[in-house]
């Protein structure tokens, strides 16, 4: 029963949600609201308690054992508590907004900006004309990189139009093909889970 009950629940809820999509009646919408907006949110809220426990246990262990970088574990724990208490005490007022605008926002922006540097080093290392396919990728990437910036138009008037053609014809065709496959795969995986054929994610067979 311990193995069967999760499968029965997965089938029941999965099938119900599938049927719910085709039923516009308010009773069906209420069911969707209860499952998605209420149960889901309640489960998530409680799971965050476990997540915080895991977070603190992980970092406290690092500090206790003085593992490499344990100072940053201490900083992480202090930061979490500081933000949490700031939000609770000030009721998300201007001080909390300042923490978001002047600490979190710049940090997020900085991490994202690393992509510019990393793409350069990745391109230098990986874009080698080792074979025909790699050469084709290399040439196309070069054309698109030039055409997507104003200097492309400056070098050749037709460059932006060539790039638009690449984006709207071969690139889009490839995207569509992969998306169709992903869509079918997603439906098949969901079906396997509903029917109990796929059980690896449950952590027991």
């Amino acid at each position, binding site marked *: 029963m311990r193995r069967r009950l999760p499968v029965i629940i997965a089938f029941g809820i999965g099938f119900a949600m599938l049927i719910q999509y085709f039923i516009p009646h308010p009773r069906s919408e209420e069911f969707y*609201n209860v499952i998605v*907006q209420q149960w889901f949110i309640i489960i998530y809220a409680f799971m965050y308690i476990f997540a915080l426990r895991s977070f603190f246990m992980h970092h406290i262990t690092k500090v206790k054992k003085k593992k490499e970088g344990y100072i940053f574990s201490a900083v992480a724990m202090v930061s979490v508590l500081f933000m949490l208490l700031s939000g609770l005490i000030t009721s998300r007022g201007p001080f909390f*907004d300042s923490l*978001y*605008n002047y600490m*979190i*926002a*710049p940090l*997020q*922006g900085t*991490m*994202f*900006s690393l992509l*510019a*540097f990393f*793409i*350069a*080093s990745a*391109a*230098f*290392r990986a*874009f*080698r*004309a*080792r074979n025909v396919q790699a050469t084709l990728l*290399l040439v196309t*990437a*070069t054309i698109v*990189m*030039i055409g*997507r*910036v*104003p*200097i492309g*138009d*400056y070098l050749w008037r037709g460059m*932006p139009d060539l790039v*638009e053609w690449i*984006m*709207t014809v071969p*690139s*889009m065709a490839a*995207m*569509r093909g992969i*998306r169709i496959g992903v869509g079918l795969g997603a439906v098949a995986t969901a079906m396997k889970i509903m029917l109990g054929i796929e059980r690896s994610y449950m952590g027991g067979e």
Partner: protein
Amino acid sequence: MGFWQRFLQLDRKWIFLGIAIVVIIPLIKPIGLPIKPTKPVIDLFTYIDTLGPESGPVMVVTGFDPSTMPELMPMEQALLRHCLTKGIPVISFGGLYPAYIGMAKMAIDEVSADFPDKKYGEDYVFLGFIPGVSAVILSIGIDIATTFGNDYYGTPIDSLPMLRGVKNYSDISLVVDVSGTSTPEYWLMYAQERYGVNIGVACTAVSAPAYYAFLQSGQFVGMMGGMKGAAEYEELMARKGYPTGRRNATIGMDSQSLAHLLIILLIILGNAGYFIVRRGERRRGIIRRKR
């Protein structure tokens, strides 16, 4: 070890330094490369440009957080400037996730400061975050006032003059989702397919290729992709004589142009080094395993 072998093992720190230099220099000494608008941006611009004060409002949805702000904030500001210049009523919607409301407020505050003659509640309104994602999009299709209740500042929707004749999507001219994630697909699924409202997209350069299919089928009226898309929109605004503000995207394009050129140069040199080293190894009879 020969020069090219050393070059192929170039420490990435030098590449990072090169990128930093080519990005910073144009910001200090702009080059002023010309921007040529492309069709997806022209389509979006033209659609909005044909609207006016008597049209239904344009809803600008903020769907990005600080990480994608450099790319997407210029787009949102350009859209807001365009609408306010033309006198098109604007509904600024703070987004489907709580992380986006700060960005929405930043955009509307900065742009509205440049239009002191425009009044809040009459020319533009700012709606806050409501949880629910797809449920919110669907609910707007029924009744905006019931969905939101109040605006971001707590004012009842019913008391805002601009929204008195605006009930749902049938009264809205266009919804533009300025997004760093996949939320345009939600607007497509729930707003466009179900209620028939026109949708425009302003997205990151990485996401843009995925939306060309929807552009081609006419499901999106137009698209701004990446910082170049924002720069093209600013260029179209400038050509029409509309106020463009600081043109942050256009300023950034010089840096992006040089960065792209540097990457292309590195790729060319890397391949040159690859072939030279390989030829040298073949001459010395070193067997290389095919990858």
